[in-house]
């Protein structure tokens, strides 16, 4: 492969990496959820924490994104909201990711 083709390939790889990075930031922005006046990230950490604590208690306290304590009185509702938001965002990201990588 001559150097101009190698350079083209490198440029393309950079463009794809950048598009992926921007798509990921977009997903992270959309993953923020407001619940009872507090902001949460609907990510794997929050979902797993709420699920784990809900196994042993009907109410419990967690931290929001700004480290403020929140009494969760309806874990089921919060968990459903987190899961729903998480999958909505990740499905969109998945579609976008496929579009980006298929142009490789």
């Amino acid at each position, binding site marked *: 492969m001559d150097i101009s083709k190698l350079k083209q390939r490198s440029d393309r790889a*950079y463009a794809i990496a*950048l598009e992926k990075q*921007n798509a990921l930031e977009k997903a992270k*922005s959309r993953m923020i959820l407001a619940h009872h*006046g507090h902001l949460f*990230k609907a990510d794997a950490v929050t979902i797993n924490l709420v699920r784990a604590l809900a196994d042993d208690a009907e109410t419990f306290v967690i931290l929001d994104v*700004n480290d403020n304590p929140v009494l969760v009185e309806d874990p089921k509702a919060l968990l459903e909201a987190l899961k729903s938001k998480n999958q909505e965002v990740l499905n969109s990201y998945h579609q976008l990711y496929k579009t980006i990588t298929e142009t490789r």
Partner: protein
Amino acid sequence: MAKQGVMVYCINTDQYRYDRIAAKTVPLLVENLGMPITVVTNEDTRPYLPVMESVDHVVIENQTGNSINGKPWHNLDRHRAYDLSPYDKTLLVDIDFFCYSDNLLTLFDTDHDFLVHDQVHDVTGKDSYNFRRASAIPMVWATLIFFKKSMYARAIFDMVGYIKANYQFYCDLYRIDFTNFRNDYAFAIALQQINGFGSYPVIPTKLCTLPARAKVTSVNDKGLTWHVDGGQGKLEDTDVHVIDKGVAYV
């Protein structure tokens, strides 16, 4: 129910037609946030502003005297937003912020009285906005401010007014490299001082920004494209702060 809406400042200079940017960004705010918009402007700019059903204009006599890159920069009235806003909950947005999603509506569902971004994402991948060594205080981004009419928010805006009036002192105190007045630093200082030099709540995402080096080549109601350093890029359905003033003529 609390009255809520979006506020933007749009004041033309001899060099830049911000009204032409408003003609692109205000309809996006209306479309994607579905809220009333208040445009703060001056007598000279008002006749050029887009006329839309849900858009009101507030005319002020703006303060002048600040500059950026040797050109006039009308950014000295941002601390007046608290008094100028007709809303209980306000999203104050720069006129060059292109709103392509409804993500920001989430902020209206919080109990917070005041929120700004403290992180930025350069969408060209060049990390152009790493200003951490440009001052002794971490900067916030005053591009987008959510506030509620409250004692806390009032204190922050009043503090910014005080900092503005004594800006050289604060510039020296915090060893800020930029000598012109910047709301980003004024709000960062105000937040630090009002919060007793402790932490404060922020918008937990990064502010997507297209730096001035990137020249916008097209804008539509879904997104925009640009050229930078011989390459090109695009964004869709993603809110983005566009620094290139040439976007007015795309």
